[in-house]
């Protein structure tokens, strides 16, 4: 009789849910880093782009560094794994996927509000567990506000980035096909664009999120669906111009297929617009999410939600100002950095502004 193998030898293939979540998060981070590396490599090869980015760096050193910091914090919060290492907030946490950031701030919770660097609670003067350890104070549930604010960076970058990744390809696809092929396709795309543009976007957003249910992805999809129109219009016009270029005519008379022309001659010439739009759209999207959070349908853990939760605290007496200030400054810092970089990028990349500056 052959003894059946003891259970311990069966390899554990089934993964638990948090482990899966951790893996997904890490895979996304990995993919993003690889993508970034590839992008940097191809930029370094291309003279025009390299020069452009060098110019941007020369003009906007501080904003680029700040943006880099935000990205770094977001990465810290994205690299996650399951397992208890060090202190634990509670017993459930041992089974959850927790990020580097989560682990750094474990066990910093107080009982309720405390002001920045305080040694005692804000309202009832009882001693804190970690006096002078909260540079931005704690919120009503005693969570460290610095921790909550740093966690918001990941959410903001996720919303901005993911939504752009949804909206820009969509806009590019419709814009280029409308501009290149014209006629019926143009009519249909234009009709679609006009219909979307004539609807109040905030109502459409609310309706979409209500229909899809509240989650980060559905907020991103809803924002993507409502924000592609402007870029679509731009890329359509640009394509119509490029279509009449001599080299496109030449390619067509040589019998090159339409798809090939679009991919080789049209889209690469739209890339500067893509980069500019991506950066400028990014800040708009992060702001839109803050508005949605205010309405109670945003993403959990975002700065918009922090501000919405803290809105009545300001009118308290004495006022609780650190919550709303921390989230507001973090939001402001990111948006300012991104807008400054976007501005510089436009100056460098957009032929129109080049012309204006002579």
């Amino acid at each position, binding site marked *: 009789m052959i003894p059946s193998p003891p259970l311990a030898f069966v390899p554990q293939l089934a993964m638990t*849910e948090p482990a899966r979540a951790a893996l997904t998060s890490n895979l996304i981070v990995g993919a993003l880093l690889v993508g970034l590396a590839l992008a940097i490599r191809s930029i370094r090869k291309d003279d025009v782009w390299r020069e452009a980015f060098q110019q941007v760096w020369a003009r906007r050193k501080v904003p680029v560094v700040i943006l880099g910091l935000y990205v770094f914090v977001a990465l810290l919060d994205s690299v996650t794994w399951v397992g208890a290492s060090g202190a634990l907030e509670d017993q459930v946490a041992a*089974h959850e996927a927790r990020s580097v950031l989560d682990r750094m701030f474990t066990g910093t919770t107080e009982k309720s509000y405390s002001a920045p660097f305080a040694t005692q609670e804000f309202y009832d003067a009882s001693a804190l567990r970690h006096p002078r350890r909260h540079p931005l104070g704690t919120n009503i*549930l005693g969570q460290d506000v610095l921790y909550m604010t740093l966690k918001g960076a990941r959410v903001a970058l996720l919303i901005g980035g993911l939504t752009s990744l949804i909206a820009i390809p969509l806009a590019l696809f419709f814009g280029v096909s409308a501009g290149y092929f014209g006629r019926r396709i143009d009519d249909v795309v234009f009709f679609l664009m006009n219909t979307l543009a004539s609807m109040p976007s905030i109502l459409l957003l609310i309706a979409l999120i209500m229909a899809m249910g*509240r989650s980060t992805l559905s907020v991103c999809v809803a924002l993507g669906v409502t924000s592609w129109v402007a870029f679509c219009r731009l890329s359509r016009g640009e394509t119509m111009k490029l279509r009449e270029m001599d080299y496109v005519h030449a390619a067509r008379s040589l019998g090159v297929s339409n798809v090939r022309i679009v991919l080789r001659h049209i889209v690469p010439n739209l890339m500067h617009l893509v980069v500019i739009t991506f950066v400028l759209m990014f800040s708009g999207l992060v702001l839109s999410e803050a508005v949605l*959070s205010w309405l109670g*349908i945003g993403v959990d853990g975002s700065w918009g939600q922090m501000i919405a*939760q803290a809105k*009545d605290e300001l*009118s*308290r007496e004495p006022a609780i100002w650190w919550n709303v200030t921390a989230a507001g400054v973090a939001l402001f810092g990111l948006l300012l950095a991104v807008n400054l970089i976007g501005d510089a990028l436009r100056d460098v990349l957009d032929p129109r502004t080049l012309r204006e500056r002579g």
Partner: protein
Amino acid sequence: MRVVLAVSLVLGVACTNNPYPEKDDGKKVLYAQYHEPPKTLDPAVAYSTNDHVVTGKVYDTLLEYHYLKRPYELIPALAEAVPEPQERADGSTAYRFVLREDLWFQEDPCFSLSGGETRRILAQDFAFELMRIADPAVNSPVIDPFSNVRGFRDFASRLKERRAADPAFGRLPVHEQYREAGGISGVEVLGEREFEVVLETSYPQILYWFAMPFTTPVPWEAIAYYDGQGGRPAFADHPVASGPFMLTRYDKQARFVLERNPNWYGLRRPEWKAPGAVFPEVTGLAPEEAEKFAAYVGKPLPFLERVEYRREKEPIPAFTKFLQGYYDSAGVVRESFNKVIQENDLSEEMRAMGMDLERSVVPAVFYIGFNMDDPVVGRAGGERSRKLRQAMSLAVDVEEYKRLFMNGRGLPAQSPIPPGIFGHDEEYQNPYRRVDLQRAQKLLAEAGYPGGVDERTKRPLRLTFDVPDTSPESRLRFSFWVRQWRRLGIDVELAATTYNKFQEKVRDGAYQIFQWGWVADYPDPENFLFLLTTEMARSVSGGPNTANFQDKDFDRLFAEMKVLPSGPERQRLVEQMRSILERERPWIELFHPEDYALTHAWLRNVVPAGLSIPTTKYFDVDPELRARLRSEWNEPVLWPIFLLFGLAAAVIAPGIVTFYKERQ
């Protein structure tokens, strides 16, 4: 020139922030605020406190509560006396109501249907309203307490059948439909001023229902006339009533006005000195309290000429207006709490303004409930689930919640029965309603979840907490409970949905944990304990027992307790029921809320009522004092205007100078 005129207008004539017309200054007008407009003013349907703001004042009832006595006591209002139950040979119980003579409705155009401007109130009008409650088309929320009335359900089904069978019948005016359907057999009209209500079984609490606007007299003319067609409002927006006040203006979204009803019996016949129409004798109050009312005892009601309600959507501006003297009373908003209340009393600043603070525990209970139909937390899990519920109950720290979210207001609940209601026991300490994490962990391990970890999945036990609020602030409040349970290692997920979606989930039985509350309709433990009977279970009858708690012993004790008069025997039964709840834990009782009401010095006779009962007719204001204090508190601050003009001049002047220089 026009600018100068506008400036002088701002500085001179219109220099006041008074939102009310000046001609009202010396009048006895009460200024109050409301947040949400009433949904309906139909007395057979209105059941929320927002609706009662109006219906409680305009609709008079057969009985009402003594204004000052606690525990609550019923006194006759439209009836001549509080009826005694009469046991009949066939096991039924009858209550005979005798109306006062010479009662009249308010004047209203609808009475043109019977050829007049108003008419006398007859016993038939009470029977008509009871038929309306039974009528399935009216959709009254209180069918249940009345279905004990003989023939009540029969009448409803007869009506439904006739309507389905004969479309012509359905088009008749409602009162003719009722007449043809034959009325409710247990509501016998014995004369113009007399009728009898016959109950199949004993139900002493029925009298409380005759102190609520549900059983007010309603004229058939009003239902026939106010059908919402041909420019006439619907009856739900246009009360025709007999109470001390009548609704004279109703802009739901902005303001409404109630004025004295000259046809109210207290005003028509002050010589009666009816108990509901004069200020009552003061008994059982502290001497300094009693002194406040001494001047009013025996005086005819109402003291106010008019009540003005304005809508206030935001709490902070509303409170500011109160501080300026433009509202006579207000609750304490959380944001201003520390300014208004210091060391459990009014702050110096507020006391200097002559304000008064009334604190009262509301006869209500808030609780976290478990869905007992759920396989994990509910009755199917047997001993295991019971221990889980007990453990979760032991982890919930209400004191801390009160401190963080309620400014420390409220009384931690030990059982469903709030103070002021028979059966509440101040000494009672529920062994599962204090924080004891060690015991909770032990129970959890016994339930098969050591350290919160489910032994089968090797993962923390995952439960869902459904909340009917998606606002970011509420998320903080509910995550407080979640964090309490996480201390035990239980992973509770918050599922925030809109209120409608939540109700849908409740209807479908797709929920595990929820938070809800109940406010007393009347001062009797029956009104709280019925929330946990099998008969009322959501999954059995769609009743308000959302926890779907079903326990045979509990039901048996409830049936016994319900019909007993309040006394030691009843107390014993309540205690037995309490111990079943203590062990079974379908609810984690959280707190009985506490109301803080601020009133200005010129508002008199305000006594916290707790129950949603009409009290406005007892209030009085001192308009002279109000006018004086208002003008003291609202001295116009003019320097910002001058500063603004100065700045504007400083900006414009260089421009003008340059302009003339260049021209030369």
